[in-house]
């Protein structure tokens, strides 16, 4: 009897300990892959920063489920002058910041001016902007020196984002985390949690929710982001019910998630594309024939299988946009996945290749990068290359790839982005340094015309150039595995998941 009482007492204590912390309703616990580097979304292009900060900072525009740009803090879509150089943006009235102040066009103009000055994506467009100013309390005017059609997509993107801060908080650094979003920052214990609470004075848009656009319902009182760097720990956390949502799970966990009665898998199909980025500034890859030899030598199918293990999680697909996307075109893609060692050897001969090692820079930070590199090394050696795999940690890779003398290829990946011009790798000023007069002309036209069909034709020319010139190689498409509680609803599948419309069943 005493033993039984003891067991009951222990079980009660255990349920008290675990129950209060984890079963609290109206709180959604989200396991993210690590601590965000900053709470200032202008300053970072990292996805984890976007995922967290989009709940408390908002942009003028956003994307709906069809990746169309739609207004968020802007009242409507802007009025654009006929020459495409002048944008008049009406701002919504009655929007309150988390500190109680009211948003007006001066806050927006100062925020955009900071974005142009400090954000990586803002700086990329700075040379095309003459001025950003408030023409009255609720209208912002952007004057360009050249037409630039991706501008609205840039303003809508949550990555290196053009968010709006209160004017008085804007400086070189942002003095306080104060936005207009549906949730506000309540507490932040680094590496432990980021607690967001519902912002009572939030004014939602009236349109139905659709992707990131429309009504933001604030169904949950709190959102807690919990940095959990170890992917196995995220898996156990979602399976145990400790987390309601877990980002970035290893693909091997899918069977356990499918078998669980507490959690279920969410497969983001497609998530993104692994990339072999080429150095055009220095070294072997300044020679076109070397790049063509690499393209001819690779067996992308084998590489993807080695990297992802399960063909439910990858697709051997060369075109730069996946099936079903507006930008999809097969132009030039016959050069993909040819795995022709003889053709590669021919290019090497043409290049006068002297056996200098081809340096591939990668890391174990993302295990699939390393696995891709290993198979690529075998393919390239079979074609006659000497290959040097430089496997370093992520911080070192981040430093080395900024020095063109230290690498020939580095491996990275990216989600599919709605607007191709937001991909910096096409730009001659990017880290890759891809310069080609014809490509610059196509790119210039692509970013200045606004007719979607005309742009689509231009993009297909751009893609053709990618396969001809090999500035980088898309290895294929891959899917991402996320996990969610069986009781969690209202979460859209996206690389940047948001929870303002989430609900948890009782």
């Amino acid at each position, binding site marked *: 009897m005493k033993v039984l009482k003891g067991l009951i007492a222990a079980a009660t204590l255990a349920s008290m300990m675990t129950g209060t912390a984890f079963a609290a309703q109206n709180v959604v616990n989200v396991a993210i892959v690590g601590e965000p580097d900053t709470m200032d979304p202008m300053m970072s292009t990292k996805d984890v920063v976007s995922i967290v900060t989009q709940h408390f900072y908002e942009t003028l525009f956003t994307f709906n489920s069809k990746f169309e740009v739609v207004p968020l803090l802007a009242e409507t879509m802007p009025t654009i002058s006929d020459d495409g150089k002048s944008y008049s943006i009406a701002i919504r009235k009655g929007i309150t910041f988390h500190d109680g102040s009211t948003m007006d066009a001066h806050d927006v103009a100062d925020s955009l001016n900071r974005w142009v000055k400090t954000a990586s994506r803002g700086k990329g467009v700075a040379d095309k902007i003459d001025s950003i100013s408030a023409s009255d309390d609720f209208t912002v005017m952007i004057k360009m020196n050249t037409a630039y059609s991706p501008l609205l997509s840039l303003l809508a993107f949550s990555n290196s984002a053009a968010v709006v801060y209160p004017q008085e908080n804007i400086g070189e650094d942002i003095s306080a985390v104060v936005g207009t979003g549906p949730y506000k920052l309540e507490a932040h*214990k680094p590496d432990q949690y980021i607690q967001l609470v519902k912002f009572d004075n939030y004014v939602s848009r009236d349109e139905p929710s659709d992707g990131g656009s429309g009504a933001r319902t604030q169904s949950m009182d709190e959102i807690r982001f919990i940095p959990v760097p170890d992917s*196995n720990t995220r898996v156990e956390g979602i399976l145990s019910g400790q987390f309601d949502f877990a980002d970035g799970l290893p693909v091997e966990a899918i069977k356990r998630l499918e078998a669980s009665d507490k959690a279920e898998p969410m497969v983001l199909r497609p998530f993104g594309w692994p990339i072999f980025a080429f150095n055009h500034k220095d070294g072997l890859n300044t020679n076109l024939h070397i790049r063509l030899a690499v393209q001819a030598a690779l067996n992308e199918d084998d590489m993807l299988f080695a990297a992802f293990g399960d063909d439910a999680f990858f697709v051997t697909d060369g075109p730069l946009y996946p099936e079903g996307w507006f930008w999809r075109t097969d132009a030039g893609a016959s050069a993909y996945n040819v795995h022709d060692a003889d053709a590669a050897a021919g290019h090497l001969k043409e290049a006068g290749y002297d056996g200098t090692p081809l340096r591939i820079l990668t890391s174990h930070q993302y295990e699939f990068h390393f696995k891709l590199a290993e198979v690529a090394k075998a393919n390239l050696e079979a074609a006659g290359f000497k290959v040097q795999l430089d496997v370093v940690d992520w911080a070192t890779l981040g430093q080395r790839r900024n020095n063109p003398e230290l690498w020939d290829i580095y491996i990275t990946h990216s989600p599919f982005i709605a607007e191709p011009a937001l991909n910096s790798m096409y730009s001659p000023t990017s880290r890759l340094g891809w310069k080609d007069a014809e490509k610059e002309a196509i790119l210039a036209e692509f970013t200045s015309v606004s007719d979607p069909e005309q742009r689509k034709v231009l993009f297909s020319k751009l893609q053709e150039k990618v396969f001809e010139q090999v500035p980088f190689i898309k290895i294929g498409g891959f899917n991402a595995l996320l996990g969610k509680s069986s009781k969690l609803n209202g979460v859209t599948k996206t690389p940047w998941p948001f929870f303002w419309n989430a609900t948890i069943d009782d």
Partner: protein
Amino acid sequence: MPLYIARRLFGMLVVMLIVLTVVFVIVRIAPGDPAALILGPDATPEDAIELREKMGLNRPIIVQYFSFMTQIAGGDLGRSLFFDTPVTTLLYQRAEPTIFLTLFSLLIAVSIAIPIGIYAAYRRGSFFDQSALSLAMLAAAIPSFWTGLLFQQYIAAGTGWFPVSGYGGPDANFFERMWHLILPAIVLGVVNSALILRFTRASMLDVLADDYIRTARSKGMSERRVVLRHALKNALIPIVTIVGLTLALLISGAVVTERVFNLPGIGSLVVGAVLRRDYPTIQGTLIIVAGLYVMVNFLVDMLYLAIDPRVKY
């Protein structure tokens, strides 16, 4: 004795100066750029240069070194590049889980190791002794991350009695936070018990073979008294030494266990700082850890005086 303490304190100061310099040099020699990491994959090299300038990382190394030493002399461990928070604040925030994890796991380790070590020595060569040694070997050989993952899968997720990871949310009270430490403390406690057990057994075996033990027995003293009063007391010095070293090791952060159980302690702080090349945090944490190490060793030496009256300084 006062002269000995003064000498030791001076020695500790010299050690700390060497540690400061070595730590500063090592983190600067390691490749990697905190600015590039903060800015993310799509930032340009020019952006990274600009941020490095802003963070003061483009100053000559010697200037950075003297600025670092001046800061330390003033009791300032610097400001985290990543969290934009004073390193002392970060250490203060991370101290609680590490201190309690250390205490719990040490308690578990000592509770397992010392009684078993004593009994194994007393029953040398017996089945119990052989089993204890084999289990100790096994505990030391199994990596703690593997045990941790098994505990997470079968005990935490399996029963739902324990949290899988973390240290509780914003509304977690002290007891809830401590509840998060139970499984990691068992994992660490079992691993660390192996070494203490082997030291206890070896030390007891030495003492049990001494003449005064035979004398005690020949006087008709009970075995319990012989073992616990006469033998154990004389066997304590190596045991206290190894317990002290284990304590110092645990304070410095049970890096792997903290990582697996996602505990926001000093171990995970230093690992995160290394991965992010957060120089001030790496430096500040290592200085404090080195200081604690030196201090624990000093205290263990002082403890010898209380344990063994024959020890004189």
